[in-house]
């Protein structure tokens, strides 16, 4: 039993569970303080997503977006690069994808892939300047990527207002993505699944991006752990000087890691515009800015952990939405919970301390018991 608790994986798993428990308890305490009906609110928060099919759909839709963002951050964090301009990349690639999907005169079989491609090209190019500045000049990619983020939001608004705005719309938005370019449901068109398929496609927007997400997770895993490129990324992340002596082109690896992560952020943006909002709307990526980091830290920066972490945080996001509609508590509670969990998980010395206290207590208790027996 003791060996079981000593194993590293079990420990880090327990650590995550403990952090999540503390975070959710913290959220509950806050709810108790601010809400007139805390039980209603927290019940909606924790169980809301399961209550209806369309809410289950919301949960899965959120999780899909989070998976792509989490993978993007996992790659840059593996190289110890703090490139966190995902929101900007995401929104610009949503714009590019949406524009191609709406306006390109071509059959959907060509248009949809090209729309995805356009999103990826834009997201990768958008990361180019911060990546080059970091690799070749050493300019803080954290600051530059955030600056580019803000610029991306402005550029997005400008392009949307000037070129894509739907006249007479009540809001800043483009026209809808045509039916044939929207992403269809993930449930295959088989006779015995027809009823489920109809119910799901009516109530939810869970599209075949499910399969793309699974593929992306595997791709990111293989890329990081089974290829030379991934080895170089991790070597640079572990110790850039050492990697350099080992003959790795550190600068090129840094640039490449940031650019490759852009492909995943682009998938998040394309997913958003083709499956969720189904048009280009002002503020469509709002509140996704930090999610990639949350997911990466919760999953231990491991691509295979990303889907689990995403399903969890996607669940909380969907739950917070239900809570806001059902009670007087705002959905921003989820960010507060996530921030608490993030702090707890990055605090290397915090949870081991708790653990130590617990184990020494147990040892003491055991000794006392022995003593009393004697």
């Amino acid at each position, binding site marked *: 039993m003791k060996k079981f608790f000593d194993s590293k994986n079990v420990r880090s798993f327990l650590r995550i569970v403990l952090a999540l428990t503390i975070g959710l308890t913290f959220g509950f305490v806050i709810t108790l303080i*601010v809400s007139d009906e805390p039980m209603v609110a927290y019940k909606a928060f924790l169980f809301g997503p399961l209550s209806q099919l369309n809410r289950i759909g919301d949960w899965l839709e959120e999780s899909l977006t989070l998976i792509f963002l989490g993978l993007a951050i996992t790659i840059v964090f593996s190289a110890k690069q703090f490139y966190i301009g995902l929101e900007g990349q995401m929104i610009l690639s949503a714009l590019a994808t949406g524009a191609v999907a709406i306006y390109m005169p071509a059959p959907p079989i060509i248009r949809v892939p090209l729309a995805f491609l356009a999103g990826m090209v834009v997201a990768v190019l958008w990361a180019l300047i911060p990546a080059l500045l970091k690799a070749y000049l050493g300019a803080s990619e954290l600051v*530059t990527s955030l600056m580019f983020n803000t610029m991306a939001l402005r550029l997005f608004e400008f392009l949307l207002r000037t070129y894509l705005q739907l006249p007479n719309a009540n809001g800043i938005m483009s026209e809808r993505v045509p039916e044939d370019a929207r992403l269809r449901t993930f449930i295959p068109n088989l006779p015995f699944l027809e009823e489920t398929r109809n119910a799901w496609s009516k109530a939810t927007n869970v599209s075949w991006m499910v399969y793309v997400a699974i593929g992306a997770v595997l791709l990111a895993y293989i890329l990081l752990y089974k290829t030379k490129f991934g080895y170089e990324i991790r070597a640079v992340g572990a110790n850039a000087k050492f990697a350099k002596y080992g003959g790795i082109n550190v600068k090129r690896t840094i640039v490449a890691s940031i650019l490759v992560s852009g492909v995943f952020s682009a998938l998040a943006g394309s997913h958003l515009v083709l499956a969720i909002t189904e048009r280009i709307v002002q503020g469509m990526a709002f509140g996704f800015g930090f999610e990639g980091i949350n997911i990466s830290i919760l999953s231990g920066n491991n691509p295979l952990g990303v889907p689990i972490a995403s399903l969890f945080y996607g669940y909380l996001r969907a739950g917070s939405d239900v809570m806001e509609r059902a009670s007087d508590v705002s959905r921003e509670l989820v960010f507060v919970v996530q921030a608490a969990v993030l702090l707890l998980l*990055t605090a290397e010395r915090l949870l081991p301390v708790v653990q130590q206290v617990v184990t020494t207590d147990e040892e003491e208790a055991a000794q006392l018991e022995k003593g009393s027996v004697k």
Partner: protein
Amino acid sequence: MTLDFVLRGIFSTFFLASVIRICTPIIFPSMGGLVAAAAGVSNMALEGIMLWGAFTGVFVSAYTGNVWLAVLAGCLAGILVALLLAVAHLQFGSDRFLAGLAVNLFSSGGTVFLMYSLIGEKGNTSTLASLSVPNVVIPFIHDIPVLGPILSGHPVFTYIAFFSVWVIYILMYRTRLGVHMRAVGENPAAATTLGINVHRVQYIALAISGFFAALGGMSLSMAYLQMFQREMAAGRGWIGIAAVNLGALRPIPTLIAAMVFGFADALANQLGSLNIPSQLVQSIPYATTVIGLAVYSIQQRRVAIERQKKYASAHYEEAASEAE
């Protein structure tokens, strides 16, 4: 012709005055960031701390009706949030960047969450009758034709901001604490052997940085505007960090960098009235920050290469003379 001339004069006076006013919320976080960075604990949560300062100031002023109590509360909030970061980083070994990002997430989510709980709004507090700090009219200077309007009549925060540069300078170069901070920032191990309590100095540095960042936030919500808006810091905390980088950890160069960014901000405001798409114009301060960082990095690189060359040639001579 004369009228044109006069108009231009007024225009430029107005513009220079706006530069000085708009600099304020950048100078404060820059100075806060400077103190923390000098002590070797760059504060990556300036942006979030600004939000808490702005938020607390607005709500306390609205509920108590006392501006100065509100400013005090805002500063305390800033210090508390900075100490949260300090505990996470120094006590529990969180990564500096990640802990900073966590605090920022906590701040941008937490302020909106509380705003909604308190007044049922998510965008801003325009429904709330909050107060703003008074403007200061400097006697005599106010009456000087051109200089007066530029230098006088700004919110009190603006004067505190420029004054704080001097305070920081004195703190860093003329006090025991400042020397300790720089020693800790330079080489913590060496500082420890000299008997300096490294953690204590870094705690104090982070608390000071929280204090100044909160002032920066309040200069947005209690002077520049008279309300709190979600995400109202709008990257100024990060621009402050960039200014500290550019200023190479010295107060005056950091001030100059902050003012360059403030100038870009004011320029964006000014051009906003022209027939240029406002969204593109609003990008100017952020683009300026990126360019500033790039230029600084190029220069740093050049200095480093030259130093290396000097070192190499000196050692080459040494080696050559030894060989003889």
